[in-house]
C-alpha cells in the first residue's frame, strides 16, 4: 500500500535520512523504532509532504506522492498524528475534530461530518464529555486521543502515528495501544513510530529499526523480539541476560 524507496532527506544542513526504504501492506501495523535523532519523525514528515526528499520516491498504491503538497497527500488518505499531539489548544475539542475533516470539507456535507464526530467520540468517550472544553486544558493522554481522533476525521486509509505514547500516563498508554489495534482490526493501515519499543512491538505486525538515518534491521515482531541487539538496545534487557 505504501512503499518508501531509498529516500534521502536533508534537515537544514544535516542529512537526516541516508536512504531509507520500507513498505507497509494494507491492514497491518508497521512500527519504526529507534532512538532520538534516528530520523523517525523525519520519515513521517516526508511521507506527509512537510519535507521533500532529495532523492528516492514514495509510492501510495503505486503512484508517487513525494512531490505533492501536504494538503493533497491528506486528501489521498494519508493522515498524520504528529509528535507531541499538536492539538489546536485554544479551540474547543469539538472544533479540533471538525478541523480534522477539513480535507474533505467539499465532498462531505455537515450531517456526514457530524456522524463521523459521533463515531470517533464512541471510540474515545472522553472527547464527548469534554467537547466544549479548550483542547489545551485536556491531560496529555486525552490530548493524544484528541489528536488521533482528529486524524481519523479525515477518513484516512493510512494513519501515521508519531510517538503516541510519549508523555502519557501508563493507563492511557494501554488504552491508546488498544485503540490502535482496534483500528487495525477495522481495516486501517497504521505506521507507528515509537521510542518505547516495548509498547510498539506489543501491537505491531512488523517493524523496522532505525539508527542515524538508516534502517539497520527489519522483520516480523517475533523476529525482532528475538534479536539480541534489539533486546539489548531497545528493550533494556540486561547485557548478561541477553548474552548468556
Amino acid at each position, binding site marked *: 500500500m505504501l512503499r518508501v524507496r531509498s529516500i534521502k532527506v536533508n534537515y537544514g544542513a544535516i542529512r537526516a535520512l541516508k536512504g531509507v526504504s520500507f513498505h507497509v501492506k494494507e491492514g497491518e501495523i508497521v512500527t519504526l523504532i529507534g532512538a532520538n535523532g534516528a530520523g523517525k519523525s523525519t520519515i513521517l514528515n516526508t511521507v*506527509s509532504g*512537510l519535507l521533500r526528499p532529495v532523492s528516492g520516491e514514495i509510492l501510495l498504491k503505486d503512484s508517487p506522492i513525494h512531490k505533492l*503538497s*501536504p*494538503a493533497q497527500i*491528506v*486528501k489521498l488518505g494519508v*493522515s*498524520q498524528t*504528529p509528535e507531541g499531539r*499538536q*492539538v*489546536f*489548544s*485554544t*479551540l474547543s475539542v469539538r*472544533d479540533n475534530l*471538525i*478541523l*480534522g*475533516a*477539513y*480535507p474533505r*470539507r467539499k465532498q462531505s456535507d455537515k450531517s456526514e461530518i457530524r456522524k463521523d464526530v459521533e463515531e470517533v467520540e464512541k471510540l474515545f468517550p472522553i472527547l464527548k464529555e469534554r467537547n466544549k472544553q*479548550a483542547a*489545551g*486544558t485536556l491531560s*496529555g493522554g486525552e490530548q493524544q486521543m484528541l489528536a488521533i481522533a*482528529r*486524524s481519523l476525521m*479525515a477518513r484516512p486509509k493510512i494513519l501515521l502515528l508519531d510517538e503516541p505514547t510519549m508523555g502519557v500516563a501508563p493507563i492511557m498508554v494501554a488504552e491508546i495501544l488498544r485503540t490502535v489495534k482496534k483500528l487495525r482490526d477495522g481495516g486501517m493501515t497504521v505506521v507507528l513510530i515509537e521510542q518505547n519499543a516495548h509498547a510498539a512491538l506489543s501491537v505491531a505486525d512488523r517493524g523496522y529499526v532505525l539508527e542515524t538515518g538508516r534502517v539497520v534491521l527489519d522483520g516480523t515482531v517475533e523476529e525482532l523480539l528475538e534479536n539480541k541487539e534489539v533486546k539489548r538496545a531497545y528493550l533494556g534487557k540486561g547485557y548478561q541476560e541477553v548474552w548468556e
Partner: protein
Amino acid sequence: MGGSYAIIALGYTIIYNGTNIINFAQGEFVMLGGLFMVTLTGKFGLSIFPAFLIAVAATALVGLLVERLAIHPLRNADVMSVIIVTIGMSILLRGIAMLVWGKDAYAAQHFSGDKPIEILGATILPQSFWVIGIMILVVVALQVFYRFTITGKAMLACAVNKTAARLMGVNVENMLMLSFVLSGALGAVAGIIIAPITLAKYDAGVMLGLKGFCACILGGLGSGTGAVVGGLLLGVIESLGAGLISSGYKDAIAFLILLIALFLRPQGLLPLKEMMMRQESH
C-alpha cells in the same frame, strides 16, 4: 470615533493572529478606503452603496498585493523584519496615494445627510450611528466567520499551530492571503465610514493606524473582543479628554493611554500568546 478604532484594531488582530505580524500598513488600508470612496462617489458619481462595495473590494485587493509582494517573499524571515517591511509598505502606499490624489483633504459624502440629531441634549451626527451600526455588523460577521465556518476555524487553527494545520490539509499560504484580504477590507470599511467625519487625505492613515494600534494594545493584542473594547474605550476617553481639557490634546491623550497601557500592563501586550504557551507547557 471609537467604533472605527475598533474596526481598525480588528484588522490588526486578524493579521496578528494569522502571522504574529503587526501590520503597520493597516492605517493605509483605512486611508485608501476613504479615498477610493471619495473618488467613486465624486468623480464617478456612484451612489453610496455600490461605491462602498467597490472601495472595500479595491482595498482588499491592495491587501492581497501587499501580502503577495511584501510578506510572501519573506515567509522564512523572522517576524521583526516582516514588521519593518510593513512599515516600508505603509510609506509606499502613502506615497502612491499622494501621487494619485495629491495633498488635498477631501470631504466625503455623509451617508444620510449631515444634519445633527439631538438626543437627550447631545447633538450627534447621523454618520456616528452608521459608524456604530456598521461596527456591530462587522463584529457579528467576524464572530460568525470564526465560530461557524470551517474556513474561519482553519484560520484560527493556523494561528495556533501551523504544522498541525498543514497536516490537516489546510493550505496555510492561502489562509495568510485571506487574512490580508480580510484585513484590507476591514480597514477600508473603517476608512469609508469615518471619511465624512474626519476628511480623507493621503496621510490620514498614519494617525488612524496608530490609534487602532493603541486600541489593540489597550484591549490585549490578538484578542478580537479586546480590540473592540479597546477601540470603544479609546474613543470615549479621547473625546472626554478633548471636551474636558482641550481638543488640541486629542491625539496626545490617545498616545498617553498607549504609554500608560504599556507601562502598567506590559503583560497585557500578548495575553493570548501567554495563555497558549501556558496551556502547552501543561
